[in-house]
């Protein structure tokens, strides 16, 4: 069974009005359970929209989406996915730990379990001493790490991530990529990941989905086979081959 199945999905915003936008056009994509798939493409090509459709925060104008064999909406109601948005979106009045505990609270976890879990998550994103701080006291990159911890807190079987590392510096970014890969391997989570960074897409993914804009379509799907990642993978010739292929596909999309 596919973890996510997107069948002939189109999304038109404000249909029939002057500000009509054809954001997604006839996208067809099946993502296997445990797969890591990255969406890449020029700004405005509909990456975030596609992710929101999978999350059932938007409903498709045409076509259908299933997540874990259910309708996307049912999957949302069953909390089958965790989501990290383009913006961290922490609640400023909650401490960092309480932000991570928010989904757990809504799921009815008891206080002791929540505390333990948020402490684990803070360790994971390497900010263990910041639990009692408020988000305003953290840098943008640190806030983004907290948002990632929040999305992982309840061990969802599907992770939807919209440029989660966009605000991080290069070293933290590589560190988070490694951590994400480790979590992904350990937990057999399926990940759909949006990024603008070609090396990031290549190092993380099993498949890179290259999208083209106006209207948003899949223009190419590039399989990446780097096997088990290690510290040396970033210097592997296979890695550079992948980077080159994705770059060429993106150039074709942008008409360069």
């Amino acid at each position, binding site marked *: 069974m596919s973890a996510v199945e997107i069948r002939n999905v189109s999304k038109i915003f404000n249909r029939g009005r002057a500000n009509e936008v054809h954001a997604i056009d006839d996208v067809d994509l099946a993502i296997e359970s445990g797969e890591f798939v990255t969406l890449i493409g020029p700004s405005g090509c509909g990456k975030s929209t596609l992710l*929101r459709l999978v*999350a059932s*925060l938007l409903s498709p104008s045409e076509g259908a989406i299933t997540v874990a064999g259910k309708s996307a909406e049912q999957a*949302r*109601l*069953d*909390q089958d*996915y965790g*989501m990290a*948005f*383009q*913006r961290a*979106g922490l*609640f*400023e*009045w*909650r*401490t960092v730990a309480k932000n991570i505990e*928010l*989904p757990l*609270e*809504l799921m009815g976890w008891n206080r002791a379990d929540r505390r333990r879990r948020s402490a684990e998550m803070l360790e994971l994103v390497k900010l*263990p*001493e910041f639990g*009692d*701080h*408020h*988000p*305003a*006291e953290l840098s943008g990159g640190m806030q983004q790490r907290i948002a990632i911890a929040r999305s992982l807190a309840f061990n969802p079987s599907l992770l939807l991530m919209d440029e989660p590392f966009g605000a991080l510096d290069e070293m933290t970014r590589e560190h988070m990529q490694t951590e994400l890969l480790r979590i992904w391997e350990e937990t057999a989570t399926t990940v759909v990941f949006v990024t603008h960074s070609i090396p990031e897409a290549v190092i993380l993914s099993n498949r890179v989905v290259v999208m083209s804009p106006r209207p948003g379509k899949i223009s190419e799907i590039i399989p990446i086979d780097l096997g088990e990642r290690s510290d040396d993978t970033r210097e592997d010739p296979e890695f550079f081959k992948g980077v080159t292929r994705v770059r060429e596909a993106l150039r074709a999309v942008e008409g360069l």
Partner: protein
Amino acid sequence: MTSVTGTADPLVRAQLLREQSARADRRATAGRVTRQVVVFGLFMVAIAAVYISYKAFGAAFDHEQHTWRIIGSYLPRSDDLNMPPIPDIFGALTDPLPGESGSMAGTLFGEALFTLRETVAGFVVGVVLGLTLAIALARSSFLERGLTPYIVASQTIPLIAIAPLVVIWGRKNIDFFPWEWKDWMSVSIIATYLTFFPVAINGLRGLKSPRPENLELMESYAAGWTPTLWRLRFPASLPYLFAAFKLAATASVIGAIVGEISAGVGGGLGRRILSEALRYSTGPGRLYASVAFAALLGIGVFLVITAVEQLVLRSQGRKAIT
């Protein structure tokens, strides 16, 4: 003394850092309060200085009226009847009122408490009413579109006009409560009327203030309207609500005083101001003293709300708006 950086254990270090920042917070608060008290003192001195100079200036030109007609014809006169000397105002506070025992300050204090009771009761009911309205309007855009014009229109009715009406209704028609209806409760209704409006309007703005990504996050957790209200919308609206509470509390004091005056309810500062105005010529200091008490009551109520606001928002690591 343990040094924070020299401690290896991260838990101990975190604890030390927390204590250090708590100490810094307390110092900052103490500094701020001192500064505010000093500024307030200077402000009072400035007002006294303006009062004294105008009085002196006016008095010097008073007998020149026929040659220089601005003073006396366009500007208020500044003789001892219109502007009693400041010592007279303080003197009035220590003297007993005509035909009564005890200092006037004591009497005014009791009357301020009476007005405060009206204000607080009206304010609390107004906050509950305003919040309920704000939540209802945030919940349903149909209600929002339908009711908002009437809520705004309700504030165009002049206070002086409704105050006597409310008191008359209270005496004649309000008998469905398990307790006996008193005149001061009618005055409270006027405070309620002034409170619910800013609370409803600002509260609605606050409840609608969360950013779209935060609302989407709650939606992604399949959180319904009520959990979203308590965990997101309501906390997001707190700075807006406190701004409204400050406005509403001072308006409630004014409403209570004006209500007492225009409806002739006895026992509070409004009635005191009215009766001292009627026998002004025999003791102008007494009227000034009563008005000063009314002003102090308003300032006091404002300060209390501000203190609560600081406590609540600071504990959440955020700042007040306005």
